[in-house]
C-alpha cells in the first residue's frame, strides 16, 4: 500500500488525487515526500494543481483519493486548526480590525498561551522580520512589504514545524520581491523549519528552493534541485518553463550510447543527448540553452555537428550579447554570448556557423 512511503519523510503525498466536479482530475496521482527542514517549491502555471496541493496540505481542501501524511501521521481527517501548520497568503490576510500585535497574538491566544510568554514570542517574531516598532499599527497603515513581514511573523510566531506559503511575494514590486526572497531563505535556514512554497515565478523558485516540483496538468513533471532542473530538464515542458530555451524539431537519425544524431526539418544533422525519446525514426524536440550556443570555431567542441545560421538581429546587453538567428527554418533561435575578449558585434545578414556540445543539446519528447 504505502509504496511511496519513505523512512524519515516529514511531509508525504501518497497517490493523492483531487477532483472538484467528479469528471476531471485537477491533481492526478501525486506522490511526494519531503524530509524535515527542506524548502520545497511547487512551481507551475496557473491551473496546474500546485495551489490545490497546498490547500490539501493545509486542510482547506480534501483529497478525493490517497493519503497525506505529516510526520508519519495521516492528516486527511484532521481539521485545519489542528494541523499546526503556519501559512502565508498571497494577499497577506492580516486581520484588518486588529493591530499587528493582536494579529500575532491570535494564534497564541487560541493555544491558551499566557500573556507574558505571548508578549515575548510576539516581540521575538517581530524582531525577526525587523518589524519590532510597528506592533501597535493596523495593517492598513503598513506598506505592502511591511504587511508581508508581519504575515510571515504571524505564521511563525507559534513555532510551527511546517510553513506553507502561497505566492507570498506576488503583490510586491520586483526589487522588494528579490529582497524578501533572501529574507525568507534566511529565516528558513536560521529556524530550521520545513517550507512548502507555491509560485509561478521560476526565478523565485530557483533562487530559494532546495528542491523544485514543476507542476503541469495535475502531474509533477520533474522534482529536482534547481541546478538539475535547469541543466537537465526531464522533458520539453520543464525545459520550456524553466529559463530561456531554443527548440529544434526533428527526427532521430541514430542513437549511439549517450549520443543521438537528429535530422532537422531542413535536412541538417545535429548532435544531442537523448533524454526521453524513442529509437531511430521517432520525432523529437531538441532543446539548447542560448548561452551554450557558440559560433567562434575555437569554442565549438571538436567532433560536434555544426549548422549554418543567418544573423537577424544583434542586441547589446552590456555584460552579454544576444543574437537572434534563422536556424533550420526557425526565426527565433537565440544565442547568448558573454561580452568576453574576442567576441564581436555580428551584423544582421551575416552568415555564420554555430555549434554546441552534444551534452548541452537535449533530445526531448516532441510535446
Amino acid at each position, binding site marked *: 500500500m504505502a509504496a511511496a512511503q519513505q523512512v524519515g519523510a516529514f511531509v508525504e503525498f501518497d497517490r493523492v488525487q483531487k477532483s472538484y466536479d467528479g469528471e476531471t482530475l485537477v491533481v492526478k496521482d501525486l506522490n511526494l515526500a519531503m524530509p524535515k527542514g527542506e524548502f520545497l517549491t511547487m512551481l507551475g502555471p496557473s491551473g496546474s494543481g500546485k495551489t490545490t496541493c497546498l490547500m490539501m496540505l493545509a486542510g482547506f481542501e480534501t483529497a478525493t483519493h490517497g493519503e497525506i501524511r505529516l510526520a508519519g501521521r495521516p492528516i486527511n481527517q484532521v481539521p485545519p486548526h489542528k494541523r499546526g501548520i503556519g501559512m502565508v497568503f498571497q494577499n497577506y490576510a492580516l486581520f484588518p480590525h486588529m493591530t499587528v500585535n493582536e494579529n500575532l497574538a491570535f494564534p497564541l491566544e*487560541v493555544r491558551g498561551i499566557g500573556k507574558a510568554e505571548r508578549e515575548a514570542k510576539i516581540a521575538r517574531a517581530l524582531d525577526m522580520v525587523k518589524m519590532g516598532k510597528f506592533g501597535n499599527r493596523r495593517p492598513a497603515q503598513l506598506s505592502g512589504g511591511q504587511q508581508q513581514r508581519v504575515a510571515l511573523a504571524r505564521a511563525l510566531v507559534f513555532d510551527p514545524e511546517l510553513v506553507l506559503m502561497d505566492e507570498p511575494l506576488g503583490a510586491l514590486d520586483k526589487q522588494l520581491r528579490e529582497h524578501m526572497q533572501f529574507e525568507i531563505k534566511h529565516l528558513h535556514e536560521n529556524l530550521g523549519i520545513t517550507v512548502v512554497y507555491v509560485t509561478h515565478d521560476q526565478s523565485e523558485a530557483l533562487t530559494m528552493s532546495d528542491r523544485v516540483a514543476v507542476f503541469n496538468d495535475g502531474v509533477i513533471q520533474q522534482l529536482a534541485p534547481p541546478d538539475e532542473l535547469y541543466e537537465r530538464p526531464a522533458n520539453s515542458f520543464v525545459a520550456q518553463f524553466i529559463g530561456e530555451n531554443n527548440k529544434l524539431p526533428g527526427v532521430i537519425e541514430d542513437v549511439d550510447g549517450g549520443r543521438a544524431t537528429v535530422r532537422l526539418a531542413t535536412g541538417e544533422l545535429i548532435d544531442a543527448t537523448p533524454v526521453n525519446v524513442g529509437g531511430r525514426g521517432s520525432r523529437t524536440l531538441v532543446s539548447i540553452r542560448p548561452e551554450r550556443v557558440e559560433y567562434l570555431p575555437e569554442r565549438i567542441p571538436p567532433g560536434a555537428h555544426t549548422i549554418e545560421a543567418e544573423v537577424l538581429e544583434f542586441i547589446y546587453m552590456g555584460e552579454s550579447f544576444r543574437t537572434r538567428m534563422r536556424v533550420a527554418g526557425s526565426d527565433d533561435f537565440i544565442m547568448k554570448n558573454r561580452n568576453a575578449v574576442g567576441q564581436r558585434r555580428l551584423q544582421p545578414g551575416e552568415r555564420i556557423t554555430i555549434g554546441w556540445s552534444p551534452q548541452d543539446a537535449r533530445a526531448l519528447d516532441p510535446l
Partner: protein
Amino acid sequence: MADLASDAPFATPARESLKTADGKPLKAALARAQARSRRRALFLVLPLLVFILVTFVFPIGQMLFRSVHNDAFSRNMPNLVAWFEATEPGTEPDEAAYAALAADLKLLRENRTAGEVGTRVNYELSGSRSLFTSTARRANALEPPFREAILAENEGWADPRLWQVMRDASSAYTANFYLAAVDLMHTETGEIARVPPDRQIYVNLFLRTFALSALITVLTLILGYPIAHLLATLPLRYSNILMILVLLPFWTSLLVRTTAWIVLLQQQGVINSTLVATGLIADDQRLAMIYNQTGTIIAMTHILLPFMVLPLYSVMRPIPPSYVRAARSLGASSWKAFRSVYFPMTVPGIAAGGLLVFILAVGYYITPALVGGASGQLISNLIAYHMTDSLNWSLAAALASILLAAVLLLYWLYDRLIGIDNLKLG
C-alpha cells in the same frame, strides 16, 4: 507698506507670495483656474440640488412648520384675538370679550368658517365644535348685552377651559400639538399634565413602534446573515440565481406581498390548514398569526429582509476566503474564526442593514394597517390616520417630527458609536 515691501524684496523672502510666469500671484491664478471647474460642477449638481430642495427639504420644512403653526383660529377670529392680546392670561371674559366673540361669530357665519375654527378648538377641547357651528348659525340674531345673549344660546361658552383653549389658539404658533403627541395637555390652570389614562396612546405607540422595529431588525439579521453569507461564497452562477430569489419580493407590489401573507397566515389559511391536516393542532385551535403583532412582525420581516441582505452581501462579497483560512491555519476552530475574524469584518454591513431596516420599519404603515389588526399598529398608522381621516394635520406633523427626531438621534448615535464612514450600503 507696499513701498516698504518693494524696497526690501529680499528682506522677507519667505513671506513673498509665489508668482506665475507673468507675475500674477499664484494663488489668484489657481483660484481663477479652479473657479471655472467649480462653476461647471455646480451646474451639474444643480438639478439634483433643486430636486432635493423641492421634494425633500421643502416638504419637511412645511411639516415642521405645520406642527407648531395652526392659524385656523387666529386668522378667523380677529376681534377675540385682539381682546386676548390686550388682556392678561387668566382674565375673566368680560362683556368686551363677549362682544368681540359675537362680532367674530358673525364673521364666521359670513365666511362659512365656523367649522374650521370649531375644529381647531375641538382638537384640544372635545365637543366644542358644535358650540361654534350652532352659535355661528344664529350669530346675526345676537344683540347686546352679548354675554347674556351668547350664554342664552349655549351655556357651554361660560366654560373657563374653553377660554383657556381659545387664548392658546389665538396665537398661530403653539407647542400644544407636541404636547398632544406625547399624551400631555394644558389644564384649565395652564399647567402641563398627562391626559387621562383612557386617552393615552402615542407614548405607548412610539415605544411599541421602536420595540417592534428593533425586533424586526434583529429577525432580519438572524435570517439575512446566513443568506448573505451563502450568496457571497457560492460560485457566481448559483449566487446569481439565489440573488434573484432574494430580490424577487422587490419586484412584486407591496400590496401583493402583503395579501399573500394574509392568504398564508389567516385562520383558514394555508399554514393553519396544513397544521390541522397533519394533526399538529386541533381545528378549533388554529393559530392567530395575522391581524395581530405576530402578523406585523412576520410580514414586515419578510418585506424588509432584502434591505438587510444586500448591505451584508456587499460587505461579505469582497472578503476573500483567505482571512478565515488564515485564522483556521493559526489554530482557530471554525466558530472562533467566525467570531473573531469574519464577524468583525462584517460589522459595517450589519450596522448599515440594521440602520436601514430599523428606519424603514419605524416608518412603515401599509403592512401593519393590512395585517396588524389592533395590536400590530405602529405610530405611522396613527400619523396616516391624522393625515387622512381625522384631518388633524398639525398633530400628524408633530408626531412625524418626533419620529424624524428619533431617527436622527439614532443616526447621530450610530455616527458616534460606529462612524458613518463605516456605513456600507452596497
